[in-house]
């Protein structure tokens, strides 16, 4: 078994080693059949959940948004100093969730880490749909979303272009590039799998895979080019991942607002993004393993162990950055910074939120030092939930909270999200799960050829 524990003795002491990552017991045909069965054999429960999610998306997401477009941004809780509310929080949060996908694919591809292979596709899929949610949140956030195309640079009848000095324009480019690259990377990796699945599937699937595999034959030349191109994609996407969330952080850091204007923001946001991203990926893997036991063969305790360590490291880095944010604010010792920190750290309910954030992002992940918790599915599930909530709170404590205490005390005003904002926030989660669930039944969520590589290339004479 993959998660079997062997014992090695050193100086007479018995120490436990890590769970092994060894997939050589799986045969190629078995992989194909498993994935196809995973996609085709769908019980009624799945459709009920999918339908319920669709209904929830309409009720909690589409309808409130339509109401907001029809009535105006006034239905939100935004007010005069606090112009950026929960929508921006969600925007930053979902960009963060999108981050781990490409990082797992790209960085671990370049470093040739074997355990990435089984989970990379799922993580990339998460990236893609998180970016869809991000894009929608940009439009939800806008006052006049029907004019969104004005923020794209294209020759038009107005002879007017866009302002490339604006941090929001950096966002348009960063997220546009990220979205395009993610789609390309996801689809590019899927081409050989679709060609492989096409041989054993039937009906509409066969014709869909036939068209989408673009006539991939699996010749050596094609594999050679595939590997080369994949290497270049990975090397492009790795700096992209870092740049995207830095740019998102510059939306805030390039202003002069106390609480926003911090030099630590770019690494702070990137670390936070990766933390929430890995938590998201792990949560997704846990849920998939629960509902589709067939996946236990591919996503093993080894993955949990590895991602657990990564989350631990990221959590510690994040904690350091949080400390730095507070310390630099205190060290600056300007009245505005102190007022902002007083509001953030000492004023209830925000002080409670801050404590909850520290608890769930620093203290809870510390338990990952224990190996038993790292290999415990339920424990990891709850840690991920805590980390995600904590990361959302972090953005909440930065985005609307800083705006509540700007420079002129006369204009200080608190912010509380309205029911429309809460509903759209919850609806976005439903929308995300809905898209993800629909996707994994149409396209292979486990990369076939990479898992086959993981299982080893069959050699008669041995390795």
């Amino acid at each position, binding site marked *: 078994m993959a998660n079997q524990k062997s014992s090695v003795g050193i100086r007479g002491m018995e120490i436990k080693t890590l769970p092994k990552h060894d997939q050589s017991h799986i045969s190629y045909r078995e992989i194909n059949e498993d994935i196809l069965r995973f996609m085709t054999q769908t019980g009624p429960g799945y459709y009920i959940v999918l339908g319920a999610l669709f209904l929830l998306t309409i009720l909690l997401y589409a309808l409130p948004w339509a109401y907001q477009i029809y009535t105006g941004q006034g239905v939100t809780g935004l007010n005069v100093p606090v112009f950026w509310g929960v929508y921006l929080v969600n925007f930053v949060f979902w960009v963060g969730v999108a981050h781990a996908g490409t990082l797992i694919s790209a960085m671990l591809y370049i470093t040739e880490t074997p355990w990435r292979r089984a989970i990379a596709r799922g993580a990339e899929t998460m990236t893609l749909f998180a970016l869809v949610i991000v894009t929608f949140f940009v439009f939800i956030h806008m006052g006049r979303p029907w004019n969104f195309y004005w923020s794209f640079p294209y020759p038009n*009848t107005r002879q007017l272009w866009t302002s490339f000095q604006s941090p929001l324009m950096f966002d348009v480019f960063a997220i546009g590039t990220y979205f395009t690259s993610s789609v390309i990377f996801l689809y590019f990796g899927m081409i050989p799998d679709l060609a492989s699945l096409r041989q054993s599937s039937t009906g509409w699937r066969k014709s869909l895979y036939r068209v989408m595999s673009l006539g991939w034959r699996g010749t050596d030349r094609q594999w050679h080019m595939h590997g080369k191109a994949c290497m270049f994609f990975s090397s492009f996407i790795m700096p992209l991942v870092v740049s995207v969330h830095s740019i998102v952080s510059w939306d805030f850091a390039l202003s002069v607002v106390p609480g926003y204007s911090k030099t630590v923001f770019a690494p702070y946001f990137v670390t936070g993004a990766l933390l929430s991203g890995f938590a998201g990926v792990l949560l997704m893997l846990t849920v998939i393993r629960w509902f589709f036991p067939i996946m236990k063969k591919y996503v093993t305790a080894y993955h949990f162990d590895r991602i657990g360590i990564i989350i631990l490291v990221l959590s510690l880095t994040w904690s350091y950055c949080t400390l730095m944010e507070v310390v630099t604010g205190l060290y600056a010792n300007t009245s505005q910074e102190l007022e902002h920190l007083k509001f953030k750290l000492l004023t209830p309910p925000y002080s409670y939120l801050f404590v909850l954030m520290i608890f769930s992002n620093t203290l809870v992940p510390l338990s990952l030092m224990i190996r038993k918790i790292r290999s415990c599915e339920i424990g990891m599930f709850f840690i991920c939930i805590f980390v995600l909530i904590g990361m959302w709170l972090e953005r909440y404590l930065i985005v609307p909270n800083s705006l509540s205490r700007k420079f002129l005390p006369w204009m200080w005003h608190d912010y509380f999200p309205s029911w429309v904002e809460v509903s759209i926030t919850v609806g976005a989660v439903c929308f995300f799960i809905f898209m993800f669930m629909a996707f994994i039944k149409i396209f292979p969520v486990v990369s076939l050829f990479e898992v086959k590589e993981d299982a080893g290339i069959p050699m008669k004479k041995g390795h």
Partner: protein
Amino acid sequence: MKKLIVYALTGVISLAIGYWVQQQFFSDRAPVQPINFSHKIHAGVNKIPCQYCHIYAERSRVSGVPNVQRCMGCHKIIKTDSPEIQKVTAYWEKKEPIPWTKVHNLPDYVYFPHKRHVRAGVECTNCHGDVPNMDRITKVSSLQMGWCLTCHTQRNVKNGRDCWTCHK
């Protein structure tokens, strides 16, 4: 295959007819006016200057639609038996303005003073097209921002590309 071509042809022809009908009767480029007034007869054949009727063009933001009195000033005597003129007379007797349809319409957020353009020596035909040869007024220029800007750039207008020169 033959069927497909027939369908496509029918579609194209009906689209063309629809486009023509739309342009002719429903378009805001050339709307049907309550009175079949011809600029060709007035400005073209009889060579009445534009500002004889559109009197505000030189001194105000709007060029002004002439009131019925100005029409009647001539048409008490000229061509009183024409059915179109009798319509004008009817409005005059009812003491009602003629409900002309505005052709060159700009949105609320555009600040366009006729005065500045007339005084700068821009010909009326520059924007309104060859009105002396139009029976029914048609919008020739697009009146879009890029179109305005092209002219402003060509004529090197001072602050001609500043947003608040034309927007309000």
